[in-house]
């Protein structure tokens, strides 16, 4: 039963994403985006990353969407309602998007990741044929909770510590830069 809910969530995501890119009223687009992001957060739950589901809601829905709505408010044009929303690349964009999805679908469907079997890649064994083995034998069960995530994120030796620091600096520069770019010139 849990699986069928996944498909419902997937449908919701798709529908609201489509709405988000096709509506005339920008504000409505933003709202549909919120719904889509919520849906994605739900999908994260199916992927056993509960922490990330929470992060998704916090950051994307909570911060990014608010930011977008602020942006929409600040750049409302008087002419907004009358102009066309879709530009003259409409046809090509649809073609390219469908094409992209189509070939990627094909790629995925030809891939060896069929079925429910989790391909098991054991350390030290050669891993050519991946369509395969049902789960059997001893496996290392890693800890997948927040603790493990945090230590992975912050350990400089085996983890992503350095990347973490760089991203922090990036956030700092973004903070400063956004303020500098968007402030009114002191006249």
């Amino acid at each position, binding site marked *: 039963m849990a699986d069928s809910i996944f498909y419902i969530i997937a449908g919701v995501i798709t529908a609201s994403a489509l709405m988000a890119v096709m509506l005339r009223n920008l504000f409505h687009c933003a709202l549909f985006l919120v719904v889509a992001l919520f849906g994605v957060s739900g999908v994260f739950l199916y992927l056993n990353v509960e922490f990330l589901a929470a992060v998704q809601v916090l950051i994307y829905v909570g911060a990014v969407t608010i930011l977008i709505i602020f942006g929409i408010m600040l750049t409302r044009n008087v002419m907004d309602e009358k102009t066309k929303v879709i530009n003259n*690349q409409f046809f090509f964009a649809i073609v390219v998007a469908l094409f992209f999805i189509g070939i990627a679908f094909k790629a995925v469907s030809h891939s060896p990741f069929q079925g429910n079997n989790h391909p098991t890649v054991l350390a030290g064994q050669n891993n050519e044929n991946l369509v395969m083995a049902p789960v059997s034998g001893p496996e290392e069960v890693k800890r997948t909770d927040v603790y493990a995530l945090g230590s992975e994120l912050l350990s400089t030796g085996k983890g992503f510590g350095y990347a973490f620091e760089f991203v922090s600096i990036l956030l700092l520069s973004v903070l400063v830069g956004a303020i500098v770019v968007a402030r009114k010139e002191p006249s």
Partner: protein
Amino acid sequence: MIQYSWLIPVLPVLAFAIIVLLARNFKKLSAFISVLTMAVCFLFSCGIFLDLLKLDPSVRLVSMSWSWLAVPPWEAHIGVLIDPLSVNMLLVVTFISLLVQIYSLGYMHDDERFSIYYSYLSLFTASMLGLVLSNNFLQIFVGWELVGLSSYLLVGFWYFKPEAAEAAKKAFIVNRIGDVGFLIGVVMIGMTFSTFDFAQVQDLAAQGIANGTYRTGFIALITLFLFCGAIGKSAQFPLHVWLPDAMEGPTPVSALIHAATMVAAGVYMVARTYALFSTDPLSMTVVAYVGGFTAFFAASIALAQDDIKRILAYSTVSQLGYMMLSLGVGGYTPGMFHLTTHACFKALLFLGAGSVIHAVHTNDIWKMGGLIRPMKITGVTFLIAALAISGIPPFAGFWSKDEILSAVQNSTISGHNLLFAAGLFTAFLTAFYMFRLFFVVFLGTSPDAQDHEVHESPWVMTVPLMILAFLSITVGWINWPGFDAFSKFLYYGPQPRLENFNGVTAFISSLVGLFGIGLSGLFYYWKVFSAEKFSEMFKPIYLLLKNKYYIDEFYDWIIKKIVFGLASIFSWFDKNIIDGIVVDGTGWTTRKLGGLLRLTQTGYVQNYALVIFSAVALIYLLINF
């Protein structure tokens, strides 16, 4: 002395260089340098001749080569070949050249560009000697072209006269047409035998024919191409048209180049490559018929000409035809013998004509008359030369022409009786027009147009005449039957052929010559028959002959219609297609393409994003399908 024979062409080149660079303004000095060089060369040639005689007949071939241009694995050589043929030519060229240069001291005395004239003469002699002494095809081709150049320079010496400039161009261009064939022949030789050396080519060709490695007619094809050059250089039909026009040059030049030496180069070349020619009856037949036809054809034109030099020019063409005819029927020795005797009496005829022109300042024979009274030496020597060329014994021409006729009669070539009859008839014509010239110019009464004093030419001009007259009488005696010095010296093959003298033929040819003289006298001296009435009766034939069978007009028409027509097609092609489509088109296309490409720079970021995503999709497609 033979090992220094390479100096012989080098000395006149040095003379040319010295005169041009240093002695241009000193007339006497330039002449002195040139004449001195020529005298030295002549003595040198005599020395080489004597040295050659000391050798046994079977080893009379000395060839020396130096590397000229090395492009590995192939090498071009420059070399000297001393054998009876080249020594014969050496003697003829240097001697006649010396006499002509001495004669020119008087003839060109008042000319402004006296020094340049002598420099050109030296250049010509150097080229001719280089040609004659060469031992490989490349070198002979170089000499060939150089003599053509010298001829151009000398014929167009008075370049301010438009006729002279045109004649010089015509000489060079017509020669060039023959030279294309010659060059093709030389290239074919190089490609077939991988060498240009005469001796090596002869040996390889003989081997190849014995083994049957060549397709039938292949060697004949090569020789026919080579013969094209001879047709051009020796003014045979159909490339004879340049020689009469070349009479625009100074008369000593005509004597040297267009009588004795340059035009003989074609005959020399055929003789030199006789090993190749004689292998195939086709080549020999072609040579014989071209020669025979030319002999008759030119003699017929000479009958109706009024310019003294033109008559002599056509006479030269005709006599060269005789030489080619002789070579074609297998008469190697008679042909070369006639070349030698002809050099003597034709040079004499031209120099005599020059003497006459120098005195009366006109070329038209009808404006001259009775000149033997004031110009005794010129007249008598001219008479001797005329008798020689008409083949009257015991003068020089009789011996050589008679040997040629015997060779034709005895040959096995198809239609040789026709050729014999043509040769005999041409001998008649030769005597006729020669004595027509003599009677009109030297005998008879002087017309009223001649009002200034006519006097004999200075001794610098008459002494060469006398020397040549002496030779015109005696040179033939070298080959007196039984003595046969010439035949024993210059022959083709392992043994000389000594049986060329035929009493019956000799008698008939002398009779024919006398008949020609007599008939000519009836027309022009005793005036029993009237030449004007005769030409009126046969007006069409007379006009045909006088206008040289309209061949010049025909060539002119061909050039205008075909050559210029083709040229205009190519010009259209070049202007519109090459220039228009390729050159301008490239520019236009580039600009248009540029204009098109500019449209991709929309400045519109979403366009760029579209392109990026499409590219990714395309790459995926390309990789997987």
